[in-house]
């Protein structure tokens, strides 16, 4: 249990640190930390100016590891992301110069502005956690986390992530507008100087790697796994959805739930973890059908209503005895 206490103290330090700059969004911060511990990648999608970049930078800054920020633009090349081999005249050898992706935390700003070719270079790194340039494979050091931001409003000159690419992200969060009081506090704290400058790292990469190991020890019981599959398969059957969740979504859901349980110092996953994470983990992978679009129902709403219809795993069979 003590390892979980360590985990709790470290993560709360991180959360508190982030909340110094992102006021009034504890849920979003929590999800971000969850994804970090679950070795996933986070997609932050929202309108401009609500603190997407701020969040990703704050998270990156809180970890005393290497942090790189890649501003995605239409002319960004894949080699800018992965790195490039250049000829060193002194040594008369090709030398690998690592790209932006070689870091513990990579902040991909406005990922939808880059060309599909560059996007897919990043996404391949995300999935494989390694980079291959000129036949040489370079491992990316754990922890490795990509925090990408995306602007859903701006359409001109953007290349929105295709469904298959979105599937690589463990979770998507939306910042949403801050509450008036939080916004007021923000005006006070941000007007003087950039608060990010004062942010001190509270955990180092090795510590995070240890926390990730702790998360691995969280027990997922058979019924909970079944419940996860029930949830994802329900999205595939739902008539309101054109595309359901992939098996990778099931995997991500359980991994995120493990991290979520560990954050609550629990060494086992409960269905409540899955319920909490279902929307952030699943919604961005789903494509709503025409009817749902006409009815104004978002993927989030559909997932929420599906959750209500799926019975939680219990030791009794008939529905009326369910407790």
């Amino acid at each position, binding site marked *: 249990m003590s390892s979980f206490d360590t985990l709790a103290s470290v993560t709360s330090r991180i959360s508190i640190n982030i909340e110094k700059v992102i006021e009034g969004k504890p849920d979003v911060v929590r999800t971000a930390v969850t994804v970090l511990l679950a070795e996933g990648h986070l997609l932050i999608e929202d309108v401009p100016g609500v603190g997407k970049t701020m969040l990703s930078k704050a998270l990156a800054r809180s970890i005393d590891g290497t942090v790189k920020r890649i501003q995605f633009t239409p002319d960004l090349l894949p080699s800018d992301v992965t790195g490039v081999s250049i000829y060193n005249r002194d040594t008369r050898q090709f030398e690998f110069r690592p790209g932006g992706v070689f870091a513990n935390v990579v902040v991909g700003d406005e990922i939808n502005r880059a060309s599909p070719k560059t996007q897919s270079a990043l996404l391949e790194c995300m999935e494989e956690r390694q980079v291959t340039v000129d036949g040489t494979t370079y491992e990316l050091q754990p922890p490795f986390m990509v925090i990408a931001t995306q602007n859903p409003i701006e359409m001109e000159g953007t290349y929105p992530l295709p469904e298959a690419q979105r599937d690589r992200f463990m979770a998507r969060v939306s910042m949403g507008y801050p509450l008036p009081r939080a916004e007021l506090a923000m005006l006070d704290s941000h007007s003087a100087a950039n608060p990010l400058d004062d942010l001190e790292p509270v955990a180092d990469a090795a510590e995070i790697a240890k926390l990730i190991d702790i998360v691995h020890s969280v027990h997922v*019981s058979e019924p909970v796994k*079944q419940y996860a599959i029930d949830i994802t398969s329900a999205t595939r059957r739902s008539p309101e959805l054109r595309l359901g969740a992939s098996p990778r979504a099931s995997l991500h859901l359980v991994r995120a739930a493990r991290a979520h349980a560990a954050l609550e110092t629990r*060494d086992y996953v409960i269905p409540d973890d899955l319920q909490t994470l279902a929307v952030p983990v699943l919604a961005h992978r789903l494509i709503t059908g025409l009817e749902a679009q006409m009815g104004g129902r978002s993927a989030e709403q559909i997932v929420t209503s599906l959750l209500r219809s799926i019975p939680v795993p*219990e*030791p009794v069979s*008939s529905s*009326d005895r369910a407790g």
Partner: protein
Amino acid sequence: MKESLGESSKIAFLGWLATVGTSACFLPTITNQSYFFYGASVTGLLVLLGIGLRLLRTPALLVVAAQLVTLAEMLILGFGEKLELGVLPTKATVTGLRDIVDSGMTVASEYAAPAPASAGLTMLVLVAIGVVGVLVDFFAAGVRRVPLTGLPLLTMYTVPVTALPDGVPFYGFLPGAVAYVALLLADERDRLSHWGRLVSRSTPGRESTAMDTSGLLATGRRVSVIAISTAVVLPIFIPAFSSSFLDGDRGTGPGTGDGPQLSFDDPMVSLASSLRRPEPVDLLTVSSDVVPDYLRLVVLDEPGPNAWRANPLDLGDTIPVSNALPRPTGVSDDVEPEQRQMTIGATAEFPQNSSWLPVPFFSQYVAIDSGWGYVPRDQTVTATTETSAAGLSDYKVTYSQSMPTREQLAAAGEVPADVRDEFAAVPADVPPGIERYARAVTSGAETPYDAAVLLQDFFRDSEEFTYDLDAAYGYGYESMTEFLQERRGFCQQFAATMAMMARTLGIPSRIVVGFLEPERRDDDGAYVITSDNVHAWPELYFEGAGWVRFEPTPGVGATLPSWAPRAVEPTASPTGPTPSLPTGRDLTEDPRTDRPTETPGAGATDGSGGGTGSAPSKGWLVLLAVVALALAPMALRRGIRRARLSGPIGAAEAAESAWLELRDHIRDLRLPWTGSMTPRARERAVTGLLMGDGEGLAALNRLTLSVERSRYAASPSTGADPASDAVTVMASVSQAAERGQRVRALLLPSSLVPDLRRAWESLLQSRRSSAPTPE
């Protein structure tokens, strides 16, 4: 309601075992125990039918309907006659069945247990077992409310419990109880294993395919073994009310207990019970100048399959006894009656509620207080008011002892048609063997009188017939064949069979219940009639002589009537609880003994320990049954709670059981516990019911954690005690509930009530979607 048919069939089979086991409770009440196997096969067929129909996904209520129809058809095939196409009942079948049921009712009401076997009784028992079997099947396998199967089983069990004065012996209780417990265990185990949290004891850490419920099962077995053995053993040490506690003031009935309060309500039954008394009691004292004749109480003249019955009496036809009584039917005017007198006194043991007054045949005057009427048809005296016999004082009877002669009987004329119609009628379903027997015995007889003497001789031949008070069969014509084969019995079989054989020969006959010639007491010379003198004999009608007494019963020391002697007198009278013959026929003066003081009502307290032989009065029984039924849900609910909170030993099972108990408790209070929720969500919902009770909230939190860990964690142990936490939470919920809710939860726990509508809907749903549905 998605469950495998294998499980449901297993439950159905256990339900069948429970029904058959419980039907063993009838074993001590019926002499012929073949019903047990019929019952087992009939219910077995019904259960198989149920399993088959459920395989076809038939709705539960339709299954019940089909089973009931099948039960009815099986009974029709087994007991009905005159069927259309061999299977369809006709009007005649229905009438026949009704007669069989009536006769079964008669047997059930007339006989002390064990009742003689009869088609009617067997059918009634089979109907009961069949209906209970269908209900058990419905509750157990149809709607899966297994605890409810206890209700029909209990109902069936109460029948022999009320019929047997000493209760049902252990072998009538054990099989049913064990099978019921097995059924409950199987069901609970089944429900727990539906969901697969898989902790195996043998291989810790490895997950197997079925939930390990062995700990639960072992505990369940232990608890049930203790409960059942306590139920069997405990009553031995606990003083119980005697059944007389339940008696109404006139509540008397069939019984063969140690000290039955005699009654003549049902003459034949009380006859048997009075003869079986271990110690005879004095009933009547008779002062007479000659040896008193047989005293008659009541006449039975309607033969039935199981018993002879008295003709319904119309009090309007009676003649006040203070009047001069008419000459008995058929006694010719040539006979000049003598005028003898006897004074009869009743002792305290004489039934205070007797509807009949013992008088000799051919009574002319009875000097007694009003309240008694003479029945000219039967030559008996009956009470015309309810309380006539209470405080019965001595009464003097003037009577004639004139006896018919053999010549007179041999020369008897044609029997009048009305007497023949009334007293020589032979029911259609009398076994033909009886007439054949009668003809064989009386072959060579020239007159009815000769035939009657031959019949009497046939029975009196004590080499052939043995006097046996323990003969188990009845005296209706259904058991006569058996009696003629076994050749054992006592006066009621002898009298009834001789009377019936006489009827098959065309001689009008009837049975009289009364008293043998009394003994003479040594000390004061009075004649004393004891309970051993109670007797039954046939009377045959001969025109001119009227009703003539015959004495077919051997071994009671009764002398043969002078008008029907026998070629060879038996040399010695066999042993038996019989009065010895009065030694002297001396004509000493009536010694006028002190008559026993009469204390009305004393008999009720004096009957050596209360009438254990009497059946409890019906009102009490109904009340008791209603109370028992009303309390049954509460008792059942308590039993379930105890089993849940004290039974399981494993931490996981204990937490699950406590959680289930909390759920049922909340449902009992009619508070919401619906839908599918995680333990935490449920905790939040229940928190609202606790009205901020801190202790309850803490216990609820611990209980939730226990359940959560038991379901989802790698190791379920939390060190908490889920049972005591559940008790705390339930107390807290109860406290927050209203008083009415609490009372209702106690008496009508709704968690027991099957939600039939829901079961019905889910059945319909499962029928509609034959494709696999979302789990």
